[in-house]
């Protein structure tokens, strides 16, 4: 009987462990995938081809060197010289740098370009909450130190998000600068590789997305709403303003524009069904209506179909 209980316990343990690992496996595997990845497959394709060509070149060179000194009385070693392919590898190195830069710009635009993060941050205002004790204890001091405190907090925030105000203020400009690091000939080769990738793998949109991103991103300004987030104007907070439920917008708030944008967009894009549901919920409860987190922002300008859904 004891043996049966022990067996049941073991089976239960095994089942629990299996269920646990089955539950966490998707999360673990998701960690290895880069969010908003548009370049990895193309980059890996080029890297793999390059590696295979390099391997063949070296292997062949070693074989050829076995007949390059055909007489037994001469030194066998030969001086290495630079080969023409090294220029191609150097161009590839620049292409990899461009592709990484494109990925970074794209990820940045996808993460922050729609302004949702900024709005969320603005709504919770951690930098203001954190000075509340100071406001209570030393109200006279707050006007002196609050601005510097907010500046420092904002600088640390950007740093922790790996953002650089001077670099990311103009993403189109950053994209153009990245592309201009390649000469015309190098860019033509890059385009040839993109075309070849699309021809070889017609069902894989990677190369087409990269091409379209460069083309459209270089022409129009995108994620422009982040200007105030990256370069805000700081003033000391007013105690009465620190009220999440009311959430008044400070005139100098760095995210005010984005918030306004979000409210406008949320109001205009809410479907009738959701409006009626929200009204019904509000009627049923005594809780005052809270401004909902915006679901939709302003759509892309007409005529500029955004392949990357930066605004969705």
């Amino acid at each position, binding site marked *: 009987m004891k043996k049966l209980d022990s067996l049941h316990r073991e089976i239960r343990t095994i089942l629990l462990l299996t269920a646990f690992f089955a539950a966490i496996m998707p999360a673990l595997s998701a960690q290895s995938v880069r969010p908003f990845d548009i370049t990895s497959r193309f980059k890996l394709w080029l890297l793999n081809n390059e590696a295979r060509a390099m391997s063949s070149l070296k292997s062949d060179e070693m074989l050829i060197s076995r007949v390059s000194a055909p*007489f037994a*009385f001469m030194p066998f070693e030969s001086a290495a010289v630079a080969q*023409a*392919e090294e220029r191609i590898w150097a161009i590839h190195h620049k292409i990899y740098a461009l592709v990484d830069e494109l990925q970074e710009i794209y990820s940045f635009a996808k993460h922050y370009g729609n302004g949702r993060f900024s709005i969320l941050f603005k709504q919770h205002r951690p930098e203001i909450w954190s000075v509340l004790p100071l406001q209570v204890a030393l109200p006279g001091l707050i006007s002196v130190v609050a601005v510097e405190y907010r500046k420092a907090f904002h600088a640390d925030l950007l740093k922790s998000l790996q953002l650089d105000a001077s670099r990311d203020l103009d993403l189109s400009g950053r994209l153009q600068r990245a592309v201009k690091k390649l000469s015309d000939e190098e860019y033509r080769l890059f385009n040839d590789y993109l075309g070849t990738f699309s021809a070889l793998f017609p069902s894989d949109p990677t190369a087409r997305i990269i091409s379209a991103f460069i083309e459209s991103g270089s022409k129009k300004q995108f994620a422009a709403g982040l200007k105030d987030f990256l370069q805000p104007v700081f003033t000391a907070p007013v105690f009465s303003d620190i009220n999440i439920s009311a959430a008044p917008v400070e005139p100098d708030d760095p995210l005010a524009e984005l918030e306004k944008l979000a409210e406008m967009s949320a109001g205009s894009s809410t479907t009738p069904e959701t409006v009626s549901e929200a009204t019904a919920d509000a009627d049923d409860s005594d809780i005052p209506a809270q401004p909902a987190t915006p679901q939709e922002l302003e759509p892309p300008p007409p005529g500029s179909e955004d392949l990357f859904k930066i605004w969705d």
Partner: protein
Amino acid sequence: MRVKTFTLLLLVMSLFTPVLGAVELKYKFRPGNVYEYDHTVTRSSKVAAFKTNSSQSPIKTSQKFTLRAIDFQEGAHIVDVIGAGGAFRRYVRENGALSGAPGETGESVPFLLSFPVGDWKVGERHQLQQTMTVGATSVPATWNMLLKSLDNDKQTAEILFNCSFKLPEDRLRRKEFAMKGRAIFNFEQGILQQSEWVSTYRFIFSNREMAVGRELWLFEHQSSSALTLAAKKD
């Protein structure tokens, strides 16, 4: 009538005797002698990727090396090869084959040219075969040699040679390699006076997915070498 025919035949044979000559080519390094050689290699290359071309203009490297003949033991000349990379002792058989290289233990010895043992007739071919191995790759290689002519006045033999082997290929990689050269050997002194050889390598790397094929890169390498006896000191 028979005498006339016989005489005519003798005359014809005597005319062709130099052409049909034969000689045994043997290295005869004399112990105590020092031989100085100049070895020049000129390499160039180019690569094409779609419409992008890159070429490396010819780069010439020259090195001198000295051969010190020390002794002849057990059918092999004991020589020290002194070059930029250091001094290496070699045991070289009379036909040019290597019987030992104690200073280069562990290193892969090249596939070397060696002469046939015994008389080698003008116009006669001589072939050497070896399987060359690099990593997991093994390639059968062949040296083809031809004694083209003998110059009895200068006591030299002109030898033509080429090397052929098939580099590993697959559906993504197409390769060509060719090497050919010429050597002048002084059969009286038993030393190589001069040699030139050139090699060309061509490698096309492509991608193929289903029915779509695209050539990505074309690599071409050329190399020409010259080996000349600069001085011989007793």
